[in-house]
């Protein structure tokens, strides 16, 4: 099934959930509500988009968009060498959407990364814990309202002295 057909099929069957279809630099992007992401991706998968190339998120705080967060899925079809971008929007007050770990195992770690850096929760994920930052880290660093320099986490360690070689430096 060609990409156009698949897109129009999704537009028809999930008309309440599809926000729109855009194209930029030759790439088709479908904007949908995050709640039905599994069903939409299943249709893509059945249509030959067998490879989840990338899963990430954006924080639309200043960019504007349908909701505060968008989880972005880049799909690739090995058969037809086509790519399509699916953007699933999640609201700020309840950043939860279903996990697609059952469709593609690669989503496991990437969803953990999105959770770690954006604080978006994935329902049904087998092991949703932080992956990049330490477990006791507070905040979600890639959100736009998180400062680049952090909140002093990088200064929070004990200072070790020189031991028996101490006098060498004090002279």
């Amino acid at each position, binding site marked *: 099934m060609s990409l156009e057909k698949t897109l129009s099929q999704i537009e028809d069957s999930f008309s309440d959930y599809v926000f729109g279809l855009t194209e*930029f*630099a030759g*790439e088709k*992007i479908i904007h949908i509500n995050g709640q039905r992401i599994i069903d939409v991706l299943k249709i893509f998968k059945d249509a030959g988009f*067998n*490879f*989840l*190339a*990338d899963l*990430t998120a*954006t*924080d639309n705080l*200043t*960019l504007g968009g349908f909701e505060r967060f968008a989880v*972005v899925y*880049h799909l*690739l079809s*090995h058969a037809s*060498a086509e*790519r399509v*971008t699916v953007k699933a929007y999640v609201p700020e007050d309840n950043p939860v959407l279903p996990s697609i770990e059952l469709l*593609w*195992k*690669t989503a*496991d*770690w*990437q969803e953990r*990364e999105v959770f770690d*850096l954006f604080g978006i929760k994935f329902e049904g994920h087998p092991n949703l814990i*932080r*992956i*990049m*930052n*330490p477990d006791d880290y507070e905040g979600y*660093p*890639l959100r736009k309202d*998180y400062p*680049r320099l952090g909140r002093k986490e990088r200064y929070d360690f004990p200072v070790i002295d020189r031991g028996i070689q101490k006098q060498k430096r004090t002279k």
Partner: protein
Amino acid sequence: MTRVTEQQLETDRMILNFGPHHPSTHGTLRIIMELEGETVMKAIPEIGYLHSGFEKLGEDLDFNQYITITDRMNYLSPLCNNVAYALAAEKLMELEVSKRTEYIRVLMCELSRIADHLLNVGMLAVDLGAMTAFLYGFRAREDIYDLFEIATGTRLTTSYTLVGGLMRDIPDGYDKAVLKVLDEVDEIANDIETLLTKNRIWHDRTKNIGIISKENAISYGISGPMARASGIDWDIRVNEPYSSYEDFDFDVAIALNGDVFDRYLVRMEEIRQSINICRQSLDKMPTGDVSIDPDFGFSLPPKDEVYNSIEGLIYHFEVTMPNRGMNPPVGEAYVATESPNGELGYYIVSDGNRTPYRVRTRPPSLINYSIFSKLIEGHMLSDAPAILGSINIIAGELDR
């Protein structure tokens, strides 16, 4: 003497902490393994020990500044990252680069691929106890470093590309230097293959170890040499050609078993093919300019103009001042390239300012590594370094 009864021999499973600082982790990986005797029953990889906030940094640096950061993401083949990022930014801004630029980029990418694979095969051999292949590989790598140094000025952190061009053209006589190194690399690859390919110990340590099936490879998003070793006929250079790869004639190396040995074979064959591509690109190197039209508004003027003419200086300031410079369109672009590890993608979202709104790297190391815990289950502990080595993890890219 009484025989020890079976009941007395019962032992608990042992939890082994592997890393984060261990010689065969190639950086900063940590794996917590549950062992039954010497068999790994379960492995939990723990990553993030090199998380440096690359993506946050990308939101604060402008399009050209971020190129210096992409070097430090993948320090085995930095030029591939430079090129991939430049391609993504060019796609976003809908820029066309000259043919010569594309050919030089291809040449540099393929040299990087050779250097990466040589080091990878060498490190895999070191982890399995064979030091010689590493030293041979590093000798060729040093020669390739020299080539990078001639063209870019540094050995490792090259920052060679600009959005819309290259930092500088390759010097005269570069092709001769490259050809000389390529001959040496060819010889060294022969030497390494003589040492390893038919070596009985090498076979014992690598065959049927860490097999990835075709289905698993797709489900786990595996790409690059690892996927090709599992029989997936997919090479972005051929299937979705970028940067004039369609002009080059080369074969895609594929193996069918998907074990460590096949991944080694695929990498060695890719070294040969890359040598071939490098030779072709030197043969067909077009003439022309490598920088985009300076009137376009954001490529820095040549340095001698900046130092010697007032117009050049003013123009330089205009480009680098905070509120001037690039005005990219509002939009987003994802570009996938074939890096030595697999699909290296850059996803750039722009809100029209001079800094990107969001820069995301699709890290092949991270995604290829995610299958590791599945691969190691049921294998001996001593196979862990072999499997790790064959995945070719680059911590900088893994954690970003």
